[in-house]
């Protein structure tokens, strides 16, 4: 099992930049306003420096009034622009994030089947869940502050040079120390951040496995084992976080050393410059105040570096999903001519021996064919291959005479549906669950789809009817009911070809018969390939194909195969406990133990 890819910094930036560029007007206005807000913050230290000089040179009260008005006016302007800027920047940032998370989910939903089978669902879930949440909270909570701080640093540095270039240079003494601090810190912390992210992935995997399997955890008294697993993975993540912060705290000390050097440099340089009558005391004061004013923004940038790196790692993981192989859509060509399904010389192997070997099979439009075979005979694989969900390692699958490879995922899916063994009830209103198959279906169409599969009666009897919330923590549906919903979705999706893989198997005991009726109703008029576990499903089919070891060993009608006395006849006898060959294959019931 592989972890999903993580994008490099360049690809991550490219993704962000391409999204920001889609909002050109808003982005520019937001940048101008937030810069204006930071610039307005520069007025105060400069005005204070002027005040010191005014007082040293014995100015009158009007100078003080002027300074007060200047600082007050700048404060109001800064407040206004900050409020406005934060809103505008958030509008850009949050819109970009919303678009990225939508893209990521879209891509996660569209992963090609061979890729999907190799990724850990936990990892995929943590990308669309955890990582989206991490990036969102970083953006919402620290984004505005970070941007404001960065702008203040840049503008203030400019302001210091405007006062006097020599004072500016003295302040710049701090720069190499900041750089050295970063160069010390980044290579040391990066591997730990990477380890921390992996540890967090393991942690959510442990938590999700426990939550999803909680019934089994309780039955087997595995609480302590699972809690120990969560404890261990969470403790690893915790210790890594603490270790990362320890490195960060040393880094922070280095930042303080840089502050000392910068501030000391300005004051000492100021001492000599004032002694040489090159600058005024006011200018030295303003420069020192400017530099002092940078402590917090730089501190903020450094303090937030953690969260920025975590968010950046999260963003890289999101961008990584977007880097994954996409289902390629082939050039448009002719569509399927009819509802036939043809497998020609199909072979398939999952990194090992052939699971399906040289299978050729043609289903005429409207024909119902049942696949029969023991466990491991390759039925499920063949079903997935026939539905175009898996790509065979040898041979061709044709829908209406067209190779599915040339048809592409979307057109294949509108031609053929696969109902797999997995039954998932989507959380939300029951009608919305069914409507996933066709979003624009009216209430009437949803009802008639449910009616057709024999589900409308019990659906109407639910507490809120069609609007009853179902799914994990909504109203609990039985296995048979969940399966009927799957059939209703199939009816609504309305593909000409349907592949049912043990679709009624999960139903449990007594509902099986009504489910079989539902399956027949849902696939009425469709070309149907059905993986039969219950041999009655085979009995109802137009033709039965018996698989063994990935090969077709028998093919024919129910009666024909019983008469032939081969593999199928053996299976039928073992399953029903009947002797084959009686009227319609049924004789007197006998105990299955005989």
């Amino acid at each position, binding site marked *: 099992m592989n972890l999903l890819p993580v994008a490099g910094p360049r690809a991550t930036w490219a993704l962000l930049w391409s999204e920001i560029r889609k909002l050109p007007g808003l982005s520019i206005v937001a940048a101008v306003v937030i810069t204006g807000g930071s610039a307005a913050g520069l007025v105060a230290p400069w005005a204070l420096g002027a005040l010191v000089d005014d007082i040293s040179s014995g100015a009158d009260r009007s100078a003080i009034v002027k300074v007060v008005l200047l600082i007050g006016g700048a404060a109001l302007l800064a407040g206004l622009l900050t409020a406005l800027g934060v809103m505008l920047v*958030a509008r850009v940032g949050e819109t970009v994030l919303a678009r990225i998370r939508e893209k990521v989910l879209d891509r996660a939903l569209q992963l090609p089947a061979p890729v999907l089978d190799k990724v850990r669902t936990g990892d995929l879930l943590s990308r669309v869940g955890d990582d989206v949440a991490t990036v969102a909270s970083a953006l919402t909570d620290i984004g505005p502050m970070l941007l404001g701080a960065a702008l203040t640093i840049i503008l203030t540095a400019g302001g210091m040079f405007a006062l006097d270039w020599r004072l500016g240079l003295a302040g710049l003494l701090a720069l190499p120390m900041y750089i050295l601090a970063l160069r010390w810190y980044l290579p040391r912390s990066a591997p730990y951040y990477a380890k921390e992210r992996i540890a967090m992935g393991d942690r959510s995997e442990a938590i999700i496995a426990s939550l*999803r399997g909680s019934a089994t955890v309780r039955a087997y008294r595995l609480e302590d084992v699972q809690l120990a697993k969560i404890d261990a993975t969470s403790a690893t993540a915790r210790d890594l976080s603490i270790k990362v912060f320890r490195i960060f*705290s040393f880094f922070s000390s280095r930042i303080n050393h840089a502050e000392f050097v910068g501030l000391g440099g300005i004051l000492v340089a100021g001492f000599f410059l004032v002694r040489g009558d090159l600058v005024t005391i006011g200018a030295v004061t303003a420069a020192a*105040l400017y530099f*002092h004013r940078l402590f917090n923004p730089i501190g903020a940038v450094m303090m937030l570096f953690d969260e920025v790196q975590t968010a950046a790692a999260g963003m890289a993981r999101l961008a990584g999903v977007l880097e994954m192989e996409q289902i390629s859509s082939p050039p448009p060509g002719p569509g399927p001519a009819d509802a036939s399904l043809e497998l020609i010389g199909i072979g398939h192997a999952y990194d090992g021996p052939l699971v399906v070997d040289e299978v050729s099979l043609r289903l005429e439009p409207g024909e119902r064919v049942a696949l029969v075979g023991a466990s491991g005979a390759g039925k499920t694989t063949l079903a997935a291959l026939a539905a175009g969900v898996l790509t065979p390692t040898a041979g061709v699958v044709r829908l209406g005479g067209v190779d599915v490879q040339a048809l592409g995922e979307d057109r294949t899916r509108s031609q053929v549906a696969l109902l797999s063994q997995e039954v998932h009830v989507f959380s939300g209103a029951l009608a919305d669950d069914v409507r996933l198959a066709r979003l624009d279906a009216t209430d009437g169409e949803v009802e008639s789809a449910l009616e057709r599969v024999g589900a409308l009666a019990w659906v109407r009897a639910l507490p809120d009817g069609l609007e009853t919330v179902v799914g994990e923590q909504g109203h609990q549906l039985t296995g048979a009911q969940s399966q009927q919903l799957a059939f209703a979705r199939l009816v609504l999706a309305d593909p000409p070809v349907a592949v049912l893989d043990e679709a009624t198997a999960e139903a449990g005991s007594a509902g099986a018969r009504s489910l079989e009726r539902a399956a027949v109703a849902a696939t009425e008029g469709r070309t149907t390939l059905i993986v039969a576990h219950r041999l009655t499903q085979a009995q109802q089919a137009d033709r039965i194909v018996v698989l063994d070891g990935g090969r077709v060993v028998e093919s024919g009608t129910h009666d024909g195969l019983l008469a032939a006395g081969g593999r199928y006849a053996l299976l039928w006898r073992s399953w029903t406990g009947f002797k084959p060959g009686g009227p319609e294959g049924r004789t007197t019931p*006998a*105990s299955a133990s005989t």
Partner: protein
Amino acid sequence: MSTGQLLRRAVRRHRGRMSLGVLLMSLHQATEAAVPVTIGVFVDKAVATGDVEPLIWCVLMLAALFAVLSNAWKLGARLIVRAIEYETHQLRLEIARRVLDPRGQRTGLRSGELLSIATSDAEKTALVMRAVSIGCAASTALIVASVSLLLVDVPLGIGVLIGVPLLVLGIQALSPLLTRHTSTQQEAVAQTTALATDLVGGLRTLRGIGAQHNAAARYRQSSQTTLRATLRAVSTAGLQDGVSTALSGLLLAAVAGVSGWFALNGRISIGELIAVVGLAQFIAEPVGTLGYASQVLATARASAGRLASVLSSPPLVATGTATAVDPAKPLLQLERVSYKTLVDVDLTLLAGETVGVLCYDPRDADALLAVVGGRASEYTGAVRVGGVPIDELDIDALRDTVLLEQHDTDLFEGTLRSNLLVESPSLERVMTAAGAADLIDELDRPLADRGQALSGGQRQRLGLARALLASPPLLVLHDPSTAVDAVTEELLAEGLAEVRSGLTTLVLTSSPALLGKMDRVVVLADGVVVTEGLHAELAESDAAYQEAVLR
């Protein structure tokens, strides 16, 4: 546990680290506050005079100040972070323990939401400690700055001391609005996250019918709703930032005006003027920090609320105190039990008996399983396990006696072997009995992602092997062979009878292969026991039974 209690407990649990950490962080802020004063002294004593000796003293003073400042933060912040990390870890485990409580939980939350609570809400709740520490430190900075101001000039100091609290109160007035919007926004984010995990969880189902595009469209809708909620919350936060920037700037203007006037009159020196305006300017930062701390607190509070609702959700069922069952009494006895669809059901399992139950309506099977598994909360009649009423039995004693394996088998990450839970010399024999002989060679194969890559039949047969290996006094199986082919089903039925011989087993199934191996079969229709007997007899004489088992 209420939201407030949860937050207070977080701080109390780590009081040692927290108090030392807060002390050091406060010392750090005090030294930060001393920096502008030091700049003032530096300008006054050295820059303005041009003498070299005070210059040397001033440089040394500055160096000492920075040494304290730097180390206080380094040590203090480490303590706080350690406290936060440990608290997050503890909260996460508490949530997990609550969710996995053997008595069940009724939070009504989806596993995506629970995951988000166990991860991101636990993290955010622990941030209360960050809010407390930076809040305390910022308050210290304000106090040190105020005292310094009072030492320079009393009326000036008093003015600042009145101005600053007014400022903080003004900003705080906006907080309830922010908390409300933040809470709505966090809920929207949690819902969108839950939707994403739900859709990805049902990915194979979606792809089968080509509904990925529709699912993506539904997610987009939810994402856009969340975007709107976030923008509302951020606008409020922006308003708060703007107001706090404007007010602290106005305060600075007032302080600069008054102290400039005092300096002009010669009441304070130039150095003191610098210190005063430097301090007034510095004050804007701790005031801003207090605003930020209140935002963090609002976030922590919102998360703690969700955490508290899970932690204080009542268990699904109550547990009793009896720890032993009477081996002489029937292992399971249901007397006139009514629950959901069940009506007055009587069922007794004697020791060593193997009983099949055939339910015409699957809802009866689910109800019966809930009753037998001790998961039914409001039933009438009597359920006794080894003579002890099931409600009076300790949950662990119950689970020691009764094991329930469902047909949809949950597996965990590890290997096939680790999923079987028990190392036993009879492992291969039991695997063969469970019809899983084909998996014996793959026992050490790593199993990723809860065994999703295995087929339904493989999962089911592993589940059965696991249940057989656990060898409980009473094993309850629900449809153990629904995803198993006919040939294997026959083998499995024989194996089950052999491994469980002498032990008590209840099998809810409609498989003729399994029912044929049972000592007797009980048939339930419309919640009522309608008939009972040997499979062979029932299959011979009862038309409805025939219809149900012969499928």
